[in-house]
């Protein structure tokens, strides 16, 4: 790794000031499991690395206030996967967090980092999309909330401003009659990126959201208010049409054609799991 400055601010305003001072020469460090690989491979050559693990207010925590669950920027995936509130209200997110990387990676990697890295294959993206999460960002103009569907711009790209810091991710607690699920196809269990991933959310009156990962330049959100997707007997045609909105590439993990086929199959299975959980009384 080539030389760079290392800053460890304790105040959010200081972190933002560093981003303003160094512009594109600054990178944020939370878990570092992607960043440090980039530094080592010299894909990233920042003048300064800003470690946000000591910033007041970003310390690891998952809290519920009223109808909103807040996961702070320094919260690692191990804790997201194990948290009882996440597991009972957002099982698809807990499932996705539990299959990223390895134990060693999940002990360092953060949920915020997973979305800020903006890989099209980011495992937590499809669940966050179907749960209608909001990304809380702090910058020179103060705090703003970005709907997660408006956060992903392309491979490695987000709509976050260069001088903004993600401070938390907020998720509205689903109603009591909702069901949700996550499914993922990879070449091996553990330490592999998703070939295809799908998350589904079905609410009490049959409105459905589907999230697709690794089948386009960014994770995809699809919403259906007709009730058709929630109906196991009636969803096939609609699903076949929706799957064609995906635009996967062929790469080392799979061909475009294989991804398209698996996307249809995985969507069926994940929708079945989500509707099954709804029938069981929801959420789980």
């Amino acid at each position, binding site marked *: 790794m080539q030389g*760079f*400055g290392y800053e460890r601010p304790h105040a959010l305003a200081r972190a933002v000031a560093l981003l303003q001072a160094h512009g594109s020469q600054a990178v944020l460090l939370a878990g570092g499991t992607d960043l*440090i690989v980039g530094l080592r491979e010299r894909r990233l050559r920042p003048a300064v690395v800003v470690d946000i693990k000591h910033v007041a207010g970003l310390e690891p925590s998952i809290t519920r206030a009223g109808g909103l669950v807040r996961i702070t920027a320094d919260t690692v995936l191990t804790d997201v996967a194990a948290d009882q509130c996440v597991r009972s209200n957002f099982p698809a997110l807990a499932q996705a967090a539990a299959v990223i*990387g*390895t134990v060693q990676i999940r*002990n*360092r990697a953060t949920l915020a980092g997973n979305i800020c890295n903006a890989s099209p294959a980011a495992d937590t993206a499809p669940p966050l999309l179907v749960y209608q999460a909001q990304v809380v960002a702090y910058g020179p103009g103060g705090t703003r909330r970005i709907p997660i569907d408006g956060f992903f711009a392309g491979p490695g790209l987000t709509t976050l401003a260069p001088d903004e810091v993600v401070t938390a991710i907020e998720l509205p607690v689903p109603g009591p009659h909702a069901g949700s699920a996550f499914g993922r196809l990879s070449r091996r269990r553990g330490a592999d990126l998703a070939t295809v991933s799908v998350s589904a959310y079905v609410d009490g009156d049959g409105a459905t959201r589907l999230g697709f990962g690794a089948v386009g330049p960014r994770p995809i959100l699809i919403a259906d208010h007709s009730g058709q997707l929630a109906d196991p007997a009636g969803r096939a045609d609609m699903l076949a049409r929706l799957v064609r909105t995906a635009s996967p590439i062929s790469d080392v993990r799979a061909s475009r054609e294989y991804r398209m086929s698996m996307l249809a199959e995985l969507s069926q299975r994940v929708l079945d799991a989500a509707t099954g959980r709804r029938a069981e009384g929801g959420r789980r």
Partner: protein
Amino acid sequence: MTHTRTIRLTVNGTTRQVRAEPGHTLLDLLRDDLELTGTKACCLVGECGACTVSMNGRIVDSCLVLAAEADGAEVTTIEAVAAGGGLDPLQQAFLDSGAVQCGYCTPGQVMAARDLLARVPHPSVAQIQEAMAGNLCRCGCYRQITEAVQAAAAAVDR
């Protein structure tokens, strides 16, 4: 341009102080500065687990932690496992099960297995495979490694 800074951390119960460049990782610090070469350097991208150490009670790939990030941390390495000269029962189980062939991945494997057994004293085969998915063995001793972890778990009851 140099950006060296002083890192103070506790390694295997002893407070240590090291001057490190930001580009140095915890792995570099352990091996090069503290000469604790039991922790191995291999893939350097967080895929193989050879550099696994425990940091603040959780296992991490030390190649993916900057030395500067370890400032103030409590780190445990493989050297603490066989402290006192004798092998830890888990290490003995690795030997007895034939889980050590070339041995290069073994320190990381042992650190990951210790972490698992501390969390789950009697893991199933599936739990062992899941917990150790971040530790690759090029000799292909996965079956023997799984058996070693099971044997070590069973030995606790005897």
